[in-house]
């Protein structure tokens, strides 16, 4: 700043009287002083029109040797007609054109909203659209502690695969899968059980009407399970912050596990309660 700006004392006093802080009053009074000084020297106030700006910018750009072709921060190509026709300083939009474009992109004037391309444009596709990063995928700004998939992860996976494969092979080598006698619809076996993962349901069937045990309860359990992430709004994943959720899930799993164990091991002929060390294990996998 070359010259000291005179503050407008009148404005300053008024603002202080209105209860504004000293700092704000001084700043506003200073601005008023500048305005007054400009008016006195005949300068125009307020935002300049596009034509005026272009006229001002053209000599500067020519001097710099640049072309004034695609100017400004408009991300779309101007419609060819507008570009060729108006010639108002290197593709800049007049305030009216800009307003029309904004209106078109917001879907005003009865046209469908289109970001980037004016609805009346000859272009059938958008040249560029704004897509928030979150709309594509999760983007993290900070670097995470990462390792290369090859060799680190793939080696772990390969070893796990070998271990599981050998385990299944070994078990299958020593244990034969059961095969009973030919199916006979007229001969109900003494011990009549579902596969182990349905034994919880079969055990419930002992206590409730089949509609409740076989349809309602499992249906409710599945819906609750699917709804879990939408019900549990707690953003924390720390075990100490989500005791209720962990307790509920543990209860659910233990409840289910106990039913499966009872049904599988402590139910014998006629689905009666028998101890496996008394009547033998009534369970076939």
């Amino acid at each position: 700043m070359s010259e000291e700006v005179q503050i407008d004392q009148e404005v300053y006093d008024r603002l202080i009287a209105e209860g504004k802080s000293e700092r704000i009053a001084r700043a506003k009074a200073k601005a008023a002083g500048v305005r007054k000084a400009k008016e006195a020297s005949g300068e125009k106030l307020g935002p300049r029109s596009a034509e005026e700006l272009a006229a001002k910018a053209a000599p500067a750009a020519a001097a710099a040797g640049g072309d004034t072709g695609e100017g400004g921060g408009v991300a779309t190509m101007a419609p060819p007609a507008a570009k060729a026709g108006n010639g108002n300083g290197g593709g800049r939009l007049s305030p009216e054109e800009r307003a029309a474009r904004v209106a078109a992109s917001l879907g005003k004037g009865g046209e469908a909203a289109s970001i980037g391309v004016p609805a009346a444009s000859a272009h059938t596709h958008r040249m560029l659209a704004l897509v928030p990063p979150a709309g594509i995928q999760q983007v993290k700004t900070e670097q995470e502690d990462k390792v290369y998939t090859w060799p680190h992860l793939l080696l772990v996976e390969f070893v796990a695969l070998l271990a599981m494969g050998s385990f299944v092979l070994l078990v299958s080598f020593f244990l034969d899968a059961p095969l009973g006698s030919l199916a006979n619809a007229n001969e109900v076996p003494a011990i009549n059980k579902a596969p182990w993962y349905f034994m919880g349901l079969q055990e419930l069937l002992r206590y409730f009407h089949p509609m409740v045990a076989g349809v309602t309860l499992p249906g409710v359990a599945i819906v609750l399970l699917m709804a879990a992430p939408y019900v549990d709004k707690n953003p924390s994943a720390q075990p100490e912050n989500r005791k209720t959720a962990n307790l509920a899930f543990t209860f659910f799993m233990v409840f289910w596990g106990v039913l499966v164990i009872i049904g599988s091991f402590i139910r014998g002929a006629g689905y009666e309660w028998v101890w496996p060390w008394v009547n033998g294990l009534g369970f076939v996998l």
Partner: protein
Amino acid sequence: MAKLSLPKPPSGDELKASVQDNVIWRSIFRPGSIYRKGYRDTSRDRALASMNNVLYHLHPVKVKRHGLKLTYTYCLGGMSFFLFVLLTITGIFLMFFYTPAAGAGTELAYLNMRELSASVTFGNLVRNMHRWGAHLMVFTVFLHMARVFYHGAYKAPREFNWVVGVILLLLTLLLSFTGYLLPWDQLALWAVTVGTNMMGYTPVFGDQVQFVLLGGLEIGPATLLRWYVLHVLFIPFVTVVFLAVHFWRIRKDGGISGPL
């Protein structure tokens, strides 16, 4: 007679060049593949090894370091998928020897099972692997679900993938249950009877549900054929679709959850 001189055998490098420097090899392995340029243990080649690999569908070039810890995932999801693949392979083998026929007096399904165990090379072993693998898969899928829950890994942005996971759990149970009937022995028949009787209690259209599932009023040859097709074709197909979505969403939702 002049001594016959054998042509000198090509050196290892020459052999390698003649195998790798031709249009077929170059069409199989893309530019940048470690099978074209050789592998040196550099960051660049580690990245290229992932990028030029079909496993790029499953894994990104880099993964979070904490995800490697065995005690974080216990490899349960991967093991479930491996068992699914193992069951597909052993299942295809079993299909060569199995006929889903159970008409009175021509119970080929059961007879095939007996023959498979008695006189097919590795038949019994592969059937055992299929059976134990199936039970194991149900178990690992359950454990996988528990692991994900206790890590709070279903929270945003992974809510939907949890839902897909629950669907996959149900599909696993259905796969296992439909397979349970196929040996057509007493065990199969009556275990399935218990299960399908429960479905008959579905409100409003219980009878219709049961009829569609059994292909009749009670379990018979029609049921066996129906469940066979469900077991070897329909449910695996649906499962593969959901698996694809499940794996894709893992990557889209930012890889493995955590660290805690």
